[in-house]
């Protein structure tokens, strides 16, 4: 194992691997320490949707810039990432929701995101399988450039491209402690050896809080158990991801034809509890049948759990901290996959002392000292 590095990244999820690539591309000596295997955590358990339709400008911009990168990423990295842009259809349930949707669409359009309000009839045109009545939808918003990428392929593509540029990714390597001297990051201690470094990036997802504790930083993130299910594969029926902020549901038909989705479960808990629940299965199956009645006859193959790394305002925590060289890259609150390409680029720019493509000061932990603006456009 390397005894020295410019940057040690903790966690080989999508964000850790994307950042490893962006840093290696800039000539940095990068080591990634992953306590399990690549995409073991939230990345490998997520719906992998790519949505630009956000309520806060920070998230919308990060997502839009990420879509621009996603669109060329397969070519840039040299490996397929399974990108499909079938759009996101977001149900609107009442007048209040319509008012908020109009505001969101206006903000999104102002930064170049092609979202729009659509009628009940248009919902049926875009996805004939949907039942607006069952959805309790009076309208919806739709953005055709939203979509989905394969989370495994994308993460492995970043990891392979990073390795080609000299980055080292150590699986089954757990960070046990981080040594700080005179307020600066000095050394990372793992179960397989010690690495001297000036920078440590905390991209440990739901375990980020524990990593931050090693340098004496207390974080407000909470791990929240989320569940998802997948059905048997069927022939292609619809292209878009369907979601609702009111019901918290999301589902789409994947590349191989299976329906994959999730919904907040009645037994949702804070903590690292991984057992799938029957109450989720029942609730999700019921709601799926309401949204898309023909799906009632499709068989469920499996269900599983993962964790959202949730912050008080559902926005990520990015950038520098009170410890020199300790960089945050976490708190993604259920949308870490879709903004990873841009987050990685920005943090690489920060670490390399380049000019940032967009400011991230408002996403540092400092914001929790003042009044926060919560992102309300959250599902799952």
């Amino acid at each position, binding site marked *: 194992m390397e005894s020295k590095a410019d940057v040690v990244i903790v966690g080989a999820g999508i964000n850790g691997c994307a950042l490893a690539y962006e840093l290696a591309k800039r000539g940095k000596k990068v080591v990634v320490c992953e306590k399990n295997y690549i995409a073991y955590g939230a990345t490998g358990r997520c719906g992998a949707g790519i949505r630009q339709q956000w309520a806060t400008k920070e998230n919308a911009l990060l997502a839009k810039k990420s879509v621009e990168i996603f669109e060329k990423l397969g070519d840039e990295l040299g490996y397929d990432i399974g990108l499909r842009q079938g759009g996101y259809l977001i149900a609107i349930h009442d007048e209040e929701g319509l008012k908020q949707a109009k505001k969101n669409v206006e903000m999104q359009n102002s930064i170049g995101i092609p979202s729009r309000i659509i009628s009940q009839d248009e919902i049926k045109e875009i996805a004939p399988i949907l039942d607006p009545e069952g959805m309790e939808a009076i309208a919806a918003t739709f953005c055709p450039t939203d979509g989905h990428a394969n989370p495994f392929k994308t993460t492995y593509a970043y990891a392979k491209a990073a390795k080609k540029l000299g980055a080292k990714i150590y*699986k089954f390597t757990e960070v046990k402690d981080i040594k700080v001297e005179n307020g600066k990051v000095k050394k990372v201690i793992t179960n397989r050896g010690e690495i001297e470094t000036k920078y440590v990036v905390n991209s440990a997802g739901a375990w980020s809080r524990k990593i931050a504790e090693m340098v004496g930083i207390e974080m407000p993130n909470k791990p929240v158990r989320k569940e998802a299910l997948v059905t048997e*594969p069927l022939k292609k029926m619809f292209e878009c991801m369907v979601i609702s902020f009111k019901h918290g549901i999301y589902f789409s038909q994947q590349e191989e034809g299976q329906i994959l989705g999730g919904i907040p479960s009645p037994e949702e808990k804070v903590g690292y509890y991984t057992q799938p629940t029957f109450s989720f299965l029942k609730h999700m199956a019921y709601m799926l049948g309401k949204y898309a009645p023909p799906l009632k006859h499709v068989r469920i*193959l499996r269900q599983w759990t993962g964790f959202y790394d949730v912050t008080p305002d559902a926005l990520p925590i990015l950038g520098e901290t009170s410890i020199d060289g300790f960089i945050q890259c976490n708190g993604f609150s259920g949308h870490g996959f879709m903004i990873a390409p841009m987050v990685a680029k920005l943090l690489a720019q920060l670490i390399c002392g380049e000019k940032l493509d967009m400011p991230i000061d408002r996403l540092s932990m400092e914001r929790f000292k003042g009044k926060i603006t919560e992102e309300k456009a959250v599902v799952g």
Partner: protein
Amino acid sequence: MKIVCRCEDITEEDIIKAIEEYGCETLAELKQLLRLGMGHCQGRTCLILAAKILARKTGKNLDEILPSFRPPVVPVEVGLVGGEDGK
């Protein structure tokens, strides 16, 4: 060409490539990369075969690779297993 996972059409060559090129060491990683065991039978047919390939390529023991199975996995009738005459 030897088919290992019938639900997802995965061959022995696919698995060897995932081990050699992507450094896969576990069934979970093969599952992520290839969709091994993610089809209709949920791995009942292919996981043991894939585990044997992993063991051969990585030098690990089968016990380290396989999750713990509790047979018979697929529900069977008591009378069918016990038979009529106890033999």
